[in-house]
Every structure is written in structure tokens, then in C-alpha cells.
């Protein structure tokens, strides 16, 4: 029997078929990694670009783009040097939900910064981003289904489409 697991802010998880992972995103970015060797899929719900924005120890590595990707690779049992050979990434989220009131690069425009940071970290590990649904002003639902190795995304009122 399959489990449908929801990932909340600053959390991450890895699943094999027949389980399903899902998360709901606003300004956060969902980083979905597929291990093409095992079929495992991992998901991190990234809230902020860099861990050093807060300082101190990192008890929730999935919270930051720069710590989420290596932590998720570790959780998937993949060493960094192998990542570019077997891992593909899809990303979603990074919306600016408060576009009408936020100006001058304020923190509530964090979505764009999250997208940029996630792309940079994935590039650092040479992990290709094969699909993305990012930016805009609407929240998104992201669903990972390792059974068919597919990822789906939808906005409020829309039908899920394959990412």
C-alpha cells in the first residue's frame, strides 16, 4: 500500500515507489531530485537562499538552498562526485505572492532569490535542471511519483500537469 507524504517548510524526504511525496509552495522552492539508477526521488522544501543569512548551527538543512542539496543527496545515498552522472533535478515555486506591496528587493521578494540560489547550488554539483515551474505570483502544488518517475505541478484551480 502506498503512502502519500506531505513535506512542510524546511523539511525534506526521500521515497521509493509506490510512495508519493507532495508539498505546497509559495515563495519557497521545491527541489525534486531523481536518482536514475535506483528510481528514488527526493524532495527538499527550501525557504531561504543561504544558511549564513541566519548564522549558528543548521538544525534544518532543507531550509536553505546551499545546505538542502548536499543534505538531500546524502539522504539519497549519493556521493557528491556521482551526482552529475545519475541525478536529474526539477524545481518549482519561488513565487512572489506579495508583488503588489513589496518593492526595492525586500525580503518578501525572497522567491526570486531562492530560485537563483537553488540553480547555483545545483550547477555547483553539476546536476542538470531538466524542468522548472518557477516565479510568478501564484502558489503551487508539487507532487513526486517514483512509480513512473514523474513530477506534477499545479496552481490553485488548475489540473496537475507533468513537469
Amino acid at each position: 500500500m502506498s503512502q502519500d507524504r506531505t513535506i512542510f517548510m524546511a523539511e525534506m524526504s526521500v521515497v521509493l515507489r509506490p510512495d508519493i511525496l507532495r508539498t505546497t509552495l509559495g515563495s519557497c522552492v521545491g527541489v525534486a531530485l531523481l536518482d536514475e539508477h535506483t528510481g528514488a526521488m527526493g524532495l527538499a522544501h527550501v525557504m531561504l537562499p543561504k544558511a549564513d543569512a541566519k548564522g549558528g548551527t543548521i538544525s534544518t538543512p532543507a531550509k536553505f538552498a546551499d545546505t538542502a542539496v548536499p543534505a538531500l543527496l546524502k539522504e539519497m545515498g549519493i556521493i557528491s562526485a556521482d551526482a552529475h552522472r545519475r541525478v536529474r533535478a526539477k524545481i518549482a515555486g519561488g513565487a512572489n505572492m506579495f508583488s503588489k506591496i513589496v518593492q526595492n528587493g525586500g525580503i518578501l521578494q525572497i522567491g526570486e532569490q531562492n530560485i537563483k540560489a537553488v540553480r547555483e547550488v545545483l550547477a555547483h554539483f553539476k546536476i542538470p535542471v531538466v524542468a522548472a515551474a518557477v516565479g510568478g505570483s501564484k502558489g503551487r502544488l508539487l507532487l513526486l511519483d517514483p512509480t513512473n518517475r514523474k513530477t506534477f505541478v499545479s496552481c490553485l484551480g488548475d489540473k496537475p500537469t507533468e513537469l
Partner: protein
Amino acid sequence: MPDFLSSTELNSLGVFADRAADNCSAAFSKWLGRSVGVSTDKVEVVPFSRLIAGTGNADESAVALCMNVEEGIQGTILLMMSERDALDLVDMLLGRAAEAQRTLGELERSALAETINIVGCAYLNSLASNAGLRVTPGPPVVIHDLVQSVLESILADQAQYQDSAVDIHMRFTNAGRVLGWKLVFLPRFDSLKRVLP
């Protein structure tokens, strides 16, 4: 529970929150032209993930009336409700027949924005007055989207400084009936300390 607030501070906050709820109730009743009770449902420090779970199903849609506060007490106050409840509220505010208008157009959004302006300021000014402060709210915003999408976009600001949120939930009643609205104030810990003894 994280030790950002001592149990004494949390109790004091509860007392202040009750007073603020009374103030909010008076302002809301005047704005609506009918008696609406506002009372504190809970005051607690919760991890972000628990806050989402306590505010509604993450995947459900909601209409969120939000207002950011930059001076006095920093944080965000938001009134969340279903789209149907939001439209019912608009009908009440505009004196229209029930279900006369079933879409959130500019007029409806404007009425809802003014609602959080009035309700939010009444609540926050009461809270801030305990320390002789006065809040300076930003412009109100009305968003119709997924519950978690809205909350996490607000919490991204606080996530720079903390891993948990002070969650102050208020409950609304009208003629003995509990309304499905949720007024949530998410202050930043550091600014909240300024109003606590």
C-alpha cells in the same frame, strides 16, 4: 517548546492578546454593523510546520487578508477564510443580498482590504499600547491562494531570524455561532519582546 519566550512572558502575552481581542471585537462590530465576538483561541510558540497544520489543510485554498507591520511590533497579521466566507463577508459589508456577487473583483477585494486594515490596526494598536508603542501598518493585501503558499511566503521573512513562530489565533462568533474565520498574528520574536514586561 523553544525558549524564545518564558512561560511568564507567554502568559503576559495571553493577557494582552485578550485585551486586544476585545478592542478588535468592538472595531469589527462597528465596521460590520452587527455584533461580532473576537476571543483569543490560543497563544503558543510552534515550529513553522505545526503552524501550517493548525491553520488549515495546506492544500486547501483560502482568501487571506494580510497586513505587514514594520513599526511598533514587526510581523504580519492576517485574516483567513474560505472564498465563500469572504464573499459572504463582502455581502454584509456592502449591504447586498446574500450571494449577490460570487467573484472576488476589485470592489470586493477593496472591501476586504479595508476590513483587515480596521481589524488589524485595532488589534495591533491595543497590543502595542502596553508598551506605549504605536504600530505603522503597511498597505493591506488580499490574496486568494493555497493556505501553505500564503503562510510560507509570510514566514520566509521570519525564517531569517527564527525556526518557530509565535502563533496568536483568534476566534470569531456571531449570535453564538463560531465563524470559520481565523485571525492570526505572527510577530517577530525580537519585536514582541518590546511589548512584554
